């Protein structure tokens, strides 16, 4: 299957947007080559601002640009974008619902060899806790382009989570992206995997393995963590009786947390969370890290098998 990194798709999408919308401006914090904002910088140097290694100032400057009518996209690694600058995002951006887009790359453990200090596994939890922010986690290159375009249409802050390595292209060019509306990637009535980001491809793989054993698994691609598509979650709970979530993020506070909150309140069924356990990461190849922390199709399939036996009323 063809693989493209979501950050590459982001770089291309920014150039398209730059052509279409003169209000789009881009800021980076000395990582333009890695985040791919360098593509925008090449085409529109007057609308690109490298802010140096100063993430708080990057977000604050973006708030001012947005207050004056611009649509700033800020990029750096997810760990710095959401962690270092968290309170600036909260008070200068989200509090006033300013039109700042934060597209953070190198999220999750697949940043790999740089190790635990650079592996952002809490960014979704941080961003999701803020009022007014839309949190998008695209699963592939097609979804990334669509998410970036959608972000411009949304009036207010948007966080887009991007990754470093290439990931399989899951969608055709006719893919329709609607923020807040989950995509059912395949049907099934025995269990549901709700996955986000790079784990959508893994979920589809796991569902394929389980199908051979006669277990029909629904795979829901939750590309928007906030606002969460609660209807899709509750339908999965009601119709399949058990949910397994999958994310390249801490099991605390991310997709799994959001799904569990919705299910507990509206239609309690068992919810199993597959994600990075409550630990910091370490250096390694992305594939090795995914294996170590249980973010593989085989592990996900195991979790679904276990979950099916715990279904309510069975």
């Amino acid at each position, binding site marked *: 299957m063809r693989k493209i990194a979501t950050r590459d798709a982001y770089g291309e999408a920014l150039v398209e947007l730059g052509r279409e919308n003169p209000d789009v401006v881009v800021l980076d914090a000395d990582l333009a080559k890695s985040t791919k904002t360098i593509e925008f910088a090449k085409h529109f140097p007057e609308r690109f*601002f490298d802010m140096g290694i100063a993430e708080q100032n990057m977000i*604050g*400057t*973006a708030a*001012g*640009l947005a207050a*004056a009518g*611009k649509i700033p996209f800020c990029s750096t690694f997810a760990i710095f974008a959401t962690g270092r600058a968290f309170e600036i995002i909260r008070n200068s951006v989200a509090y*006033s619902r300013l039109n700042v887009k934060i597209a953070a790359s190198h999220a999750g453990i697949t940043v790999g060899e740089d190790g635990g200090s650079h592996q952002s596994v809490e960014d979704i939890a941080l961003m999701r806790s803020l009022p007014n922010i839309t949190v998008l986690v695209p699963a592939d290159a097609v979804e990334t382009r669509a998410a970036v375009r959608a972000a411009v249409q949304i009036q207010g802050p948007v966080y887009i989570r991007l990754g470093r390595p290439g990931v399989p292209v899951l969608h055709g060019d006719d893919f329709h992206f609607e923020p807040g509306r989950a995509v059912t990637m395949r049907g099934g009535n025995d269990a549901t995997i709700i996955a986000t980001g790079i784990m959508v491809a893994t979920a589809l793989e796991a569902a394929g393995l389980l199908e051979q054993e006669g277990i029909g698994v629904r795979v829901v691609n939750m590309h928007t963590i906030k606002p969460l598509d609660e209807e899709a979650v509750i339908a999965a709970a009601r119709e399949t009786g058990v949910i397994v979530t999958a994310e390249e993020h801490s099991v605390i506070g991310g997709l799994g947390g959001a799904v569990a909150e919705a299910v507990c309140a509206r239609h309690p069924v068992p919810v199993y969370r597959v994600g990075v356990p409550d630990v910091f990461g370490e250096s390694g190849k992305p594939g090795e890290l995914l294996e170590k922390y249980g973010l593989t199709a085989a592990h996900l399939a195991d979790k679904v098998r276990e979950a099916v036996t715990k279904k309510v009323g069975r």
Partner: protein
Amino acid sequence: MDGEKIKRLEEKAREIRRHIIRMTGAAGSGHPGGSLSSADIVTALYFEVMRIDPKNPRWPDRDRFVLSKGHAAPVLYAALAERGFFPVEDLLTLRRLGSPLQGHPDMKKLPGVEMSTGSLGQGLACANGMALAARLDGRDYRVYVLLGDGEIQEGMVWEAAMAAAHYRLDNVTAFLDHNGLQIDGPVAKVMSVEPVAEKWRAFGWDVQVIDGHNMEEILQAVEKARAVRGKPQMIVAETVKGKGVSFMENMVEWHGVAPKPDEVERALAELA
């Protein structure tokens, strides 16, 4: 300089100070000390310097003011009300549930507030963003920002100072309300920020040091700053915390404590 104009502005600053006392007194909380110290600067900006239209608060070509030291909200609210952005009577709703006059400025709640501030250290970066937008749009508006001297202990201020000089934002004029006191005591004791003028100069700014309570000096400094090309400008204003109310002047205790009713009376009598 026109003596009549100076007298008019000095009287306006006194009125702003009276509002600060009444508002914080009515609220029973708030920050009178740093509001009073910056009253002359804010008055100069809103009643002489800035190009604004209270009837059209979102006018794209308006000058912007960012109150980075957002806890001095009372001085900003008083100026906005006196300038006609909202009724003066509303000042007495400061900090009350449902009031647009939040404890710290909220741009979505009150017309004329250009940026939500209060978490210290964030305003200069926002001002820079507005200044960059002006440049991109080919507009000639200017952005004024007021920082506190304790506030510049925040590292982000220096990130923004660096960026403003790097991008040669000569449409940014900052004031430093150099009153020497912060919550825990004298700035020099808590965490010295000296030498401030040299620091800003070293960061690539045009720097002036003035008496922040001398209206004529404030206006002259702004004029000189406007003529600077290729550099952001810092006007270090030497001020007195609690200025204008004898029992509040230079008293750290009045940083974040509201006057009681009898204190309101005494303060208003002094400001009459």
